[in-house]
């Protein structure tokens, strides 16, 4: 399978992406993640003002067969939450890098970006995962 990647974004091993716009970080899940989940039926997100921590859960994405945590790729304060996803969870499947952003965060430590992969490295990582998972 081939998946889409946003070249502007950086990625976590747990399949979330983060993209900086000015000094604001936008966070979502990757095309590969939505493929693993299959049809998303519900998204549970934090509240504005919450603090999120790199590597810790920031919410839950639910499909018919699984409910997986989305882990925050960066630490910071939640400035905005994509409440549209409540009514349109399928956007995660349709447009994971666009309409289906999860939260906007004010990062507390930009050096955390160094712990993430760029698009090329992430693509290689996904291909590796695919091979491991094949049976």
């Amino acid at each position: 399978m081939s998946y889409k990647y946003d070249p502007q974004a950086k990625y976590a091993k747990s399949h979330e992406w983060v993209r900086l716009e000015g000094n604001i970080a936008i966070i979502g899940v990757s095309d590969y993640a939505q493929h693993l989940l299959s049809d998303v039926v519900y998204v549970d997100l934090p509240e504005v003002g919450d603090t999120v921590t790199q590597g810790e859960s920031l919410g839950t994405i639910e499909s018919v067969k699984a409910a997986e945590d989305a882990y925050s790729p960066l630490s910071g304060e939640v400035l905005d939450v994509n409440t549209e996803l409540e009514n349109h969870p399928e956007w995660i499947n349709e447009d994971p890098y666009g309409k289906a952003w999860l939260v906007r965060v004010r990062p507390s430590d930009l050096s955390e970006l160094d712990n993430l992969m760029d698009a090329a490295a992430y693509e290689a990582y996904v291909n590796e995962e695919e091979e491991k998972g094949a049976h």
Partner: protein
Amino acid sequence: MNYIPNTDADRAEMLKVVGVQSVAELFHDVPAAYRFPPLTLPPALSEPEVIEELNALANENDDPHHLACFLGAGAYRHFVPSVVDFILQRSEFFTAYTPYQPEISQGTLQAHFEYQSMICALTGMEASNVSHYDGATAAAEAVIMALQIGRGKRNKVILSPTLHPQYRAVIHTYTQGMGLEIAGEDLIGVALREPEGTAGSAALLDALAGLLDQQTACLIVQNPDFLGRLYTPAEMQALADRVHAVGAQFVVSVDPISLGLFVPPGRYGADIVTGEGQPMGSPLSLGGPYLGFFAMRAADVRRSAGRIVGQTVDAEGQRGFVLTLSTREQHIRREKASSNICSNQALNALAAAIYMAAMGKHGLRTVAELSYHKAHYAADLIGKIAGYTVISRWPFFKEFIVRCPQPVALINEVLLDRYGMVGGYDLGNDYPDLQGHMLLCVTEMNSRAQIDLLAEALEEITTMNLERYEGEVSRG
């Protein structure tokens, strides 16, 4: 062996296919030193023998089937229409597992969807699950759900002291590893001062509201409460508003039969409504199996535990039903699930559904009204007997408190021995300040003649020398 169809000849053929000489060989992985232990069990009985033994055991009990019963306190003797058990015993319902294969489980699934609908109708709420184990565990699950809604940031739970004592005990048990602050139970004094003077106000609800803060996940009250008191919708709404003002959940535990008559919690601000569903079609059966019903706001269902049935369509567009939202549950979420519940009380939920459908809006109202009028008739009658005081000067449904001239256990023993009656609940068991107070329960199953006899008996008891009975009770 009755229930094992295979014969020695069958087994011999099967062993050949398996490729072993004997059945014992199949257990070679079991450590030899411990294999095939002799068990010391009573010898096997045939069917007629086991029935005889069970009848002998049953005959050692004094059962309310043959006696008048004025005992409630969380388990109630209401009429169960014959259709309920008749339908329950349909094998297709009775011997099915959880409906994991919806195509051949539409009977269970649709019946449970209808159960959910009728629980919503009864409680005035938007959504319901298919049950918890009983009223107590449903209350505990409400606490856990409120903690979820509070996203783990709120860790205080306020319990009314007049929530059923066993429900409070179960909440403590369930949450002992969660590091919660549980407040409110010591306010019983406030509830008990009321009977002496301030009938009509709800000092207890006020005092409970006084404990609310930003750390509070939920506040739970029972209505009618364990002491029988019915709080008015206005009092409850006022409390709900104060609970919501701090962002907490308002949980109400309720007697479902009372909802045949009284305004449901959904109309006075409840976020979660739980209760003991036993009065709707399940026999008393010494305390189980019962069912905990659980109703909530539609927006909160994903934070709830337990099975939920949803409507959908099949490949041809025909309406059908499936278990839905199962990603919340333990078999998928594993350690991240908020509750471990798997088996529930599905058959009791079916019984409750049949009961509600059979009663309908008029039947349930009649049951509630009969209970109400008979309980008030009994309270009037008993209140006139010298030595007894009815302290329930508040609105009540079918249970009220009588202060007795002798220890309650003693009175109950005489009622059982001499009059063939099961007396009321000894409130001194749970509330030290209520030693000598009996909680009496009257339902549509109690005839006027029974109530009159109870009053006569209570009066006669005041003139008896109870020393003989003292001996009996002190053994207990």
